[in-house]
């Protein structure tokens, strides 16, 4: 690529590269770069030079004539964007337009422009991605210039990625857009949140049954109440609901057409490559690698963990119902359900039941943390996908578990 230029004034000259452009949708990437490249006559600013080199190489028809220096208002430390008048810009095939172009730091330009909430979030998401990958987003906004000299409101058009000492990017992947993929089916999301609710209620009531750490004080005339009775009623009732939920999950694992609900998802290590990816994911979490392999749905470590959670929940159901069955020892059915108590003793079963609860709590803490972490770093909308089902991926991304995003 030709869009490189030594940064002037640097002690050791580093090359300045243009990584690509993001467009808010109204104009294409070439227009964004051409607008950014409009520079005063004889400008030796390295950004201007690099942009102009690129426009002449890639979109010569969009190149604008140099601007009269009087039409340029350069950025300052206080106002981190510059404003330039661009006359006769070929905005559409039909004709040209006179525009006021605002160019500068993202924050500064966004503060001056009106933009819809959806667009703003999209621009921010892309700008954050660019920053994470070492580019500085140079924001571009335009306003119309009426013949009488009045300037319309500024609209954000996108940004250009500027980098120092960065390798240039493949122009095929300049289209720096995010694509929403509908990944999680409604029934899966419903399962997830019903499970959250059930585990929450069962944990609270179960903890009180394990250790009734509060209750009425002993003094004469105290009303007896029915505290533990209510707690145990809720625990047992929600326990039955949870069992039904678990049963429906098992059924869906075998009959569902949704790949993410199928039982095959519980064991992710089917090929050698999966084991390698598992290792990479673990190294990423251990801060050894800076990039993790990209997965649209779950990574192998998640698959293994969630399989473990299914086992833990199964153990909770088995131990819970074997304890509940103790009330009905004359019924052959409940006597059968209670069989585990004869292997480990009732206190042993209660101990497992309690320790599994703490284990699930530890899982929930790590699970919530890693979900928030992944969403903040990768910007894929993982948290909101648990509610609306859609994750965001960059166009051109090559996930392990899905075809290239295009």
């Amino acid at each position: 690529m030709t869009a490189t230029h030594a940064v002037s004034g640097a002690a050791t000259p580093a090359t300045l590269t243009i990584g690509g452009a993001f467009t808010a949708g109204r104009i294409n990437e070439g227009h964004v770069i051409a607008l950014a490249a409009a520079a005063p006559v004889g400008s030796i600013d390295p950004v201007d030079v690099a942009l102009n080199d690129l426009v002449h190489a890639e979109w010569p028809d969009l190149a604008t004539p140099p601007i009269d220096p009087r039409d340029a208002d350069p950025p300052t430390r206080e106002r981190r964007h510059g404003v330039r008048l661009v006359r006769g810009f070929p905005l559409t095939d039909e004709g040209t337009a006179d525009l006021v172009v605002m160019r500068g730091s993202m924050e500064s330009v966004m503060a001056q422009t009106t933009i819809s909430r959806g667009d703003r979030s999209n621009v921010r998401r892309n700008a954050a991605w660019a920053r994470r990958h070492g580019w500085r987003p140079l924001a571009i906004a335009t306003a119309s210039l009426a013949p009488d000299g009045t300037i319309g409101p500024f609209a954000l058009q996108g940004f250009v990625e500027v980098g120092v000492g960065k390798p240039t990017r493949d122009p095929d992947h300049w289209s720096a857009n995010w694509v929403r993929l509908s990944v999680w089916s409604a029934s899966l999301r419903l399962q997830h949140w019903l499970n959250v609710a059930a585990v929450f209620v069962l944990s609270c009531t179960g903890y009180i049954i394990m250790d009734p750490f509060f209750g009425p004080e002993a003094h004469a005339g105290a009303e007896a109440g029915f505290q533990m009775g209510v707690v145990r009623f809720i625990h047992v009732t929600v326990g039955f609901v949870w069992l039904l939920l678990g049963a429906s999950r098992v059924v869906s694992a075998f009959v569902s057409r949704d790949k993410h609900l199928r039982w095959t998802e519980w064991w992710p290590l089917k090929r050698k490559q999966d084991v390698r990816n598992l290792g990479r994911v673990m190294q990423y979490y251990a801060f050894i690698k800076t990039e993790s392999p990209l997965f649209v749905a779950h990574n192998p470590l998640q698959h293994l963990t969630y399989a473990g959670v299914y086992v833990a929940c199964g153990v909770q159901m088995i131990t819970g119902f074997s304890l509940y069955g103790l009330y009905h020892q004359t019924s052959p059915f409940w006597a059968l359900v209670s069989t585990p108590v004869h292997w480990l003793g009732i206190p042993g079963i209660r101990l497992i039941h309690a320790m599994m609860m703490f284990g699930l709590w530890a899982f929930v803490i790590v699970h919530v943390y890693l979900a928030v972490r992944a969403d903040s770093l990768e910007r894929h909308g993982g948290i909101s996908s648990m509610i609306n089902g859609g994750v965001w991926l960059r166009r051109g991304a090559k996930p392990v578990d899905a075809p290239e995003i295009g």
Partner: protein
Amino acid sequence: MANPVDVWAEPTLGENLARAGVTRRDFLAFCGALAGFFALGAGAPRASAEDIADKLAAVTKPNVVWLQLQECTGCMESTLRSGGTTVEEVVLRLLSVNYNELVMAAAGDGANKALADTNAEPHILVVNGSIPLKDDGIYCTIGGESAEEVLRTSAENATAILAVGACAVWGSVQASRPNPTGAVGVDAIIRDKPVINVAGCPPIGEVITATVAYLLMHDDVPKTDAESRPLFAYDQRIHDSCPRRAHFDAGQYVRSFDDEAARNGWCLYEVGCKGPSTFSACPVFQWNLHTSWPIGAGHPCIGCTEKDFFDRFTPFYQVLPNVRGFGVEATAEKIGWGLVGATVAGVAVHAGLTAIRHAASRKSEEGEPLHAFGDEPHGKAE
């Protein structure tokens, strides 16, 4: 203590009782109590006092070998105090306990001969005490034979085998970790015949006599649970019929043995009562002529009718058993909260490292100052 039947003179129990001056009214009263007891468990067939009286009265003198192996004699003491009314005493005498170390008059060769003679005929075998297997059974020998040999010989012609007490059921205290003598229960040795486990340390005297009476009455073993305990006495947990259960449901707990709640007779769950984990008829039948029982006296149940209670139910004054690790024992709750705390700490450290790395990578992005972003003073480049 009065002994109404000193000698078995008539062929049946009924006639012997009549001869000894026990009125039918007294006998029926006893049978009524037994009927109530059997009716406890839905597993047992319904029986009226008259049925029991007719059947018991028709009983002919069965031979009994009552072995006492590795044990403390507590079960025998409990049996002898079963009710204490003359009629229970009679039933026991009428069993013709030909061999029992504690109550028999014979000693030495005479005792051994009584055992050998009874073993040769069909008989009921009652066993107290565990069987130590380690080091060829040297830890309990009777007349030069190991407990295992004594048991196997006596079991050969036995028509029914009762393991009475925690020792005979699973080994009890001496079988608990580390079990230095290798003690096991009767059903670990006798595998070809059903063994009725009358569990408890000791079992309630009435449960022992009721089991014997059931055998005599029905000529068959009672219905049992998965651990071979007669369902009529072991189908409900202490918790299910505990007189303090209302306090459990109300959330009213004794939190230390000297608090106001303890004086009010509230639930002992928080001080480690094992009633919710223990199958026994204690709250219904109680002990020593219905005088009292552990929970009635303000002490939590320790779960002595359950297998391995000494290992699995300890510490007795905690709700959950301890978690054993590498020589470290801690309460389940401590370990659970420790796990949660460690997870939170781990997450905090990981989040901190993430933030530091993220900030570092952001800083490196700043890179060279560029005029287009307003980094440099005005006018330098343009």
